[in-house]
């Protein structure tokens, strides 16, 4: 892997995800730190990435690398963890029943992915499905339910969720920009995961004296 990717692009990508993951735009701009359960989910996702060889720790930190290279590797590992945590902070609803349901849903999905021992490509696909599904549920479905106006999707949800009081599902109204920002953040995260090193540098072993 080129040094510039490991030292510059990957940390900047993941730190940007960590920054934008907690950004909430409303009447005022706020930066929301991750709830404790997002840390748990982040740690589980980190485990999935390591197990699926998306993040190969020895390619980023090992005795064969120099101290500066190991420091760069440590930054990438930490930034990946914080980005993973903030991604869950981003796609999880703020409160109430949806907060609980989303966390259970994500937890089960991650446990399932961990148990399956998938390869790198499968993990990347799985990540796209997990964050994509959570994005659609929060920013499209819940966003439509929480919208004070009468949209087609909201009427459809009334029919589908007949008997359920929508008051238990509604969330604070989302700013029109929030969905686009979240989408961009998730795409950045997936790009970052795909850019993580897959192979270490080849090392030629030469016997001394030959």
């Amino acid at each position: 892997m080129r040094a510039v990717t490991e030292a510059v692009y990957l940390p900047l990508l993941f730190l940007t995800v960590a920054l934008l993951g907690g950004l909430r735009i409303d009447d005022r701009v706020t930066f929301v730190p991750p709830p404790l359960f997002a840390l748990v989910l982040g740690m589980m996702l980190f485990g999935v990435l390591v197990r699926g060889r998306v993040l190969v720790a020895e390619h980023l930190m090992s005795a064969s690398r120099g101290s500066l290279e190991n420091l760069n590797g440590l930054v990438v590992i930490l930034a990946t963890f914080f980005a993973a945590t903030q991604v869950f902070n981003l796609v999880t609803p703020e409160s109430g029943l949806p907060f609980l349901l989303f966390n259970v849903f994500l937890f089960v999905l991650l446990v399932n992915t961990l148990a399956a021992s998938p390869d790198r490509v499968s993990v990347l696909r799985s990540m796209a499905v997990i964050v994509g599904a959570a994005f659609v549920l929060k920013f499209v479905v819940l966003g439509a339910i929480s919208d004070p106006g009468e949209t087609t999707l909201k009427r459809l949800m009334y029919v589908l969720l007949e008997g359920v009081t929508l008051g238990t599902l509604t969330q604070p109204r989302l700013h029109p920009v929030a969905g686009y920002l979240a989408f961009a953040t998730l795409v950045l995260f997936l790009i970052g995961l795909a850019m993580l090193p897959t192979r270490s540098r080849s090392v030629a072993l030469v016997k001394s004296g030959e």
Partner: protein
Amino acid sequence: MLIVMGDRYVRIFGLALAVCYATFIVWLYVRQPQTLAEVTGGLTATVGAYRIDQPAFDDALGLFRREQHEAARAAFERADPAGQDARTQFYIAYSYYRSGWGRVYQDNDFLKKGLVHADKAIALAPAGLVVDDPEISMHNAHELRAEIAQGLQVDASDFNPMRVFRPRK
């Protein structure tokens, strides 16, 4: 630029950049700035380079002394757009106090806003802020905060008819 730099320099540059960026992100989450002016002002204040707009502050002080509090607050906000100067925040709090004060009725909305700015002034001057101004009665940010907080409390003394004779500070 990165292409012509050697690997070692790229790694050092990347490390420094990541540390600075991460520090900036932590700072944003801790300070919660609302505007770009607050971001830039907060960063310059961190390195001790923040300066208020002195002519705007002088204008604001003139308006404050002429009891034109709404205009004074607007001018104070213009003088300290990032909200990083303790003295300006003190005057904004004082202005809200005077707007909210009344002999028979007080406006709690003004007092609450005053309390926010008084707290900000105290936070910006942890060593204590004393404003040497003969035109005002309270010179200390803590004293101002206590006066505003007391105004917001409802107790038996609020129903004392002699209260109408109390002086405005």
